[in-house]
């Protein structure tokens, strides 16, 4: 029941903030913030006192929806979902905070969309019914389209359309695969059901399994995104408002990774194992190619966007390495990437508010004026290049350590990706905060609100870097299951 409450809180808060937003902007903001904080509180509470000894699934909630077709409202939470939800509500609350001053038009509708995206993401992370999964999967799409298309930068419509077309195309393939699985299962067992647990271990012919698996995989690869399906990402990330970028990079991409861990690997273990070298290769190409593209960019947000391509390559690499260390790394990478890239987008947004450009060629020497922002940027840049002591290092190291057991050559190439990461990450510092300062800027350093956001992020990333064990333990059970 608590799981349904999580979704409903966001749903009603979304409607409420829209209605209230007509009269009062601040009211709309406070409603959004409070609902997210409430959810974050609930999830943290669940984390701390989840019922012990219930096995892998902490909570389950199941009500028939359309029993005739085997569709049910089936929600369940395990460690992986819990971690993803905590990340969702944390970043969600931060993205409300970060839009406090940035968004001034149609505030109510903005928060409606934001909460609706988060509601969809929450659903994706919780649902255990494939029909419902597809429902939520599409549900996060449209408000995101509005977020980019209405509150974005100059080329927002192009970016929004591109984002929509790519993810929708992937989603349709997934729908086909879901229906295929549904009928294959029915043909073999005479039970028509969309339920995840029933569909596990569906006996099927290997060729069929491969096609269905590819349907799911392509949808998740588009979302992840992996080369060559990544090209929607830089446009969408660049053009979206800061909160949109944070949600996109921090959460939407994670739904792809989550999908691979939750659906592709358990539903089609044999087919996934067959395709593993290709998938790992795509991951490695993503790491290197994304890094190279990031190095060349002059648009701050676009640069960060491409680093996401590079980082998500590690997720793909680890997910198909088929061992526990790599999976732990993948889960860590999902969380730490959300934090570090989200933070970089927040910094980019804060800079944009001050100097009204995203072109890093026009920046330089900003440390002089913005030492606090510079220090924060330094921390997250170091996180993105994988400095030990920050969360991303643990993640990347575990992924590489695990994938080494699976494939030596690809791991070596991925490790070289760390050098590329160094090159592009330092370029950020170099071009933005260091170097000569041509113009006389007169601008304030981080405001109190921004400071709160940044400090929260810094604390989390350091905590993950020095004491990742709670996270690793939480995802442990789920991973045991996937590995088996």
């Amino acid at each position, binding site marked *: 029941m608590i799981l349904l409450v999580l979704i409903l809180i966001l749903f009603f808060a979304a409607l409420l903030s829209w209605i209230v937003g007509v009269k009062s902007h601040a009211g709309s903001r406070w409603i959004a913030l409070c609902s997210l904080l409430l959810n974050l509180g609930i999830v943290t509470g669940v984390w701390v006192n989840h019922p012990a000894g219930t096995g892998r699934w902490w909570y389950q909630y199941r009500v028939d929806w359309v029993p005739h077709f085997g569709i049910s409202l089936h929600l369940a939470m395990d460690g992986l979902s819990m971690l993803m939800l905590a990340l969702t509500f944390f970043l969600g609350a931060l993205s409300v905070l970060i839009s406090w001053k940035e968004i001034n038009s149609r505030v109510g509708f903005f928060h409606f969309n934001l909460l609706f995206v988060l509601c969809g993401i929450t659903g994706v992370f919780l649902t255990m019914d494939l029909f419902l999964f597809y429902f939520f999967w599409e549900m996060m799409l449209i408000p995101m389209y509005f977020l980019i298309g209405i509150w974005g930068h100059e080329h927002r419509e192009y970016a929004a359309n591109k984002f929509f077309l790519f993810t929708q195309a992937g989603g349709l393939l997934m729908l086909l695969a879901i229906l295929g699985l549904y009928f294959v299962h029915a043909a073999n067992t005479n039970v028509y059901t969309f339920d995840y647990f029933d569909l596990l271990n569906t006996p099927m012919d290997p060729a069929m399994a491969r096609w269905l698996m590819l349907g799911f995989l392509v949808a998740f690869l588009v979302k992840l995104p992996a080369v060559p399906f990544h090209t929607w990402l830089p446009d969408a990330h660049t053009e979206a408002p800061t909160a949109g970028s944070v949600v996109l990079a921090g959460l939407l991409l994670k739904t792809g990774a989550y999908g691979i861990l939750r659906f592709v690997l358990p539903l089609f273990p044999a087919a996934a194992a067959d395709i593993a070298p290709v998938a790992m290769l795509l991951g490695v190409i993503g790491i290197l190619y994304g890094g190279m593209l990031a190095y060349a960019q002059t648009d701050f947000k676009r640069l960060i966007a491409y680093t996401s391509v590079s980082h998500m390559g590690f997720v793909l690499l680890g997910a198909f390495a088929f061992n526990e260390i790599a999976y732990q790394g993948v889960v860590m990478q999902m969380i730490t990437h959300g934090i570090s890239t989200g933070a970089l987008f927040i910094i980019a947004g804060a800079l944009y508010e001050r100097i009204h450009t995203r072109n890093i060629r026009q920046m330089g020497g900003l440390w002089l004026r913005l030492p606090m922002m510079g220090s924060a940027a330094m921390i997250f840049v170091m996180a993105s290049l994988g400095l030990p002591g920050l969360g991303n290092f643990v993640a990347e190291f575990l992924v590489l350590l695990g994938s080494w057991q699976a494939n030596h050559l690809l791991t070596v190439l991925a490790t070289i990706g760390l050098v590329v990461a*160094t090159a592009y990450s330092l370029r950020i510092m*170099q071009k933005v905060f260091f170097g000569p300062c041509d113009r006389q800027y007169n601008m304030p350093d981080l405001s109190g609100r921004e400071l709160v956001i940044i400090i929260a992020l810094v604390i989390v990333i350091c905590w993950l870097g020095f004491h990742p064990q709670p996270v690793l333990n939480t995802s442990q059970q789920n991973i045991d299951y996937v590995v088996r």
Partner: protein
Amino acid sequence: MFPALIPLIPFVSALLLMLGWKRLSRIAVTVIGCGSIGLSAFVAVLIAIQFAAGGEQAIVQHAGNWVEAGGFKTGFDLRMDALSVVFVGVITIVGFLIHVYASGYMHEEPDYARFFACMNLFVGAMLTLVMADNLLLLYFGWEGVGLCSYLLIGFWYKDPANNYAARKAFIVTRVGDTAMAIALFMLFQFTGTLRIPEILQSSTHIWSKGDPVITWIALLLLGGAVGKSAQLPLQTWLPDAMAGPTPVSALIHAATMVTAGVYLIARTHTLFELAPDAQITTAVIGAITLVLAGFSALVQTDIKRVLAYSTVSQIGYMFLALGCGAWSAAVFHFVTHAFFKALLFMAAGAVIVALHHEQDLFKMGGLKKQLKGIYWVFLVGCASLAAIPFVTAGFYSKDQIIWLSLSAAGGHTAFWLAALLGALLTGMYTFRLFFLVFYGDLKTHVHHRPGNSMMIPLYILALLSTIAGFIELPHTLGHVTLFSNWLLPVLPAVSVLHDSVAMEWTSQALSAVLALSGIGVAYAWVVWRPKGMSDFLEMPALLWLRGFWSRGWDFDKLYNILLVYPFVYLSRMNKKDLIDKLYTSLAALMQWCHNVLARTQSGLLRWYILGVVLGAVAILSVLIWRIYI
């Protein structure tokens, strides 16, 4: 006493300085910055005494778990054994002196707190590195050192050149780190752990001598070491790293960072012993680097770059010793080198400050009278670097290496000759520098004399540079083996093949003579006959060679052409993302199709009917074709 305190104190102080960068006064910053390292040194000494008295193999402290996932387990485990004690001692003590010096050197710097925060972080990271009980924690320190070098080399961030140097240092060392990371993966794959003692213990059971796997591992570890220690082929970052403030250079060169590679190899010496090929590679790299860097040092015009190349060269000696299996000799040279190199850098810094940030050697000169105190400490440092016999620490440590490069089990005549050539070159470039600075005509006016905070550390280091040598004396001269005995529990004694006193004497005499003749050449070159020498040096062939050496044998150019330019070019070319073109051209194709089809919607009724008729004709034709023909 907890060993964890030693790195923790600098870290905490760095954090304090970062948080309080606006509020803390200058004095508070100095106290926290220097005091923390002093406190750390004090704790280190206490623990060393406790360790020496306890007689255990090592003091290990488990300061918490770090990562535990699927059979992989590491914690924050700190280890104090004989080797760590030596390194920790040098790092904290020399680091403390450098900090004290820096408080004087940097006292006009507006970003004073940031400077000390980074310096403390640097020391803390280095201490973590040398005290780590597992390789992951070592890697933590290893990367932390890289980060701090980046922050400090680029400390004066407004100058793009500094940033370039900082970036270069970070990226080049990261290349080595990558190799080391892969070595870590391999070690974990085969031993199932990253704890150093366990790895060293199990390695002899797992691998036989010369096994290709262990050779790969050792070579990859060497790759990491080469990156951090600025050896061939990753030496290019160090000379550029002179862009940072001088105390930073001193810290990088003497106490931290560049010696990390030496430490790593010494720490994992068991693995290298199992992989003779890798060990020979180490020695060859050391030998080549020490000669190449020696030549480069000979022709530099920047005072700090001469010292930078000399560091590369001296670390080459250490690598040579490691490669020959003379583990303790390498560590011994590290210790003496730390003292005299810190001394030289800080003295050079004092000179630079005195001449109002003038670094060009040819604009110096005649400072002997002007800067009396510095003259003397500089002389001590130079003498030690050039290994003037009997009275300097450098002589004893370097001489040991030269002798062992011939006589040790891994030694070879070629190594010995290279080491001797290096000795000659060292004498030449060291004293060329010395004479250029202190003799001849006064060219730049002295406007600022270093204060006590800068001079006292110099005196202490001068003293150390002299007496530190007496803890380890060769057979021929007293035979004191305090140092190698101390290290014996960790590092095995060197196995000497040609144990002949006469040959050892010959070697020592030869090296001493070469060092002295190097000084003689330098004297002739700079002081005695500057005119004649410069005529000789202006010959076109030599001019080119000098340029070539002074550019560090054009390694920068080579790497730029081979790696940097292609990467940058490719990424610039591909800025718009080729794959995106695929999708946009698909969209363009659709657009084109739309345009073509839209033209058929002409609005002319008759055209539509014509279309219907055409369709009917076509369908009927197909029907007739299929059914009747």
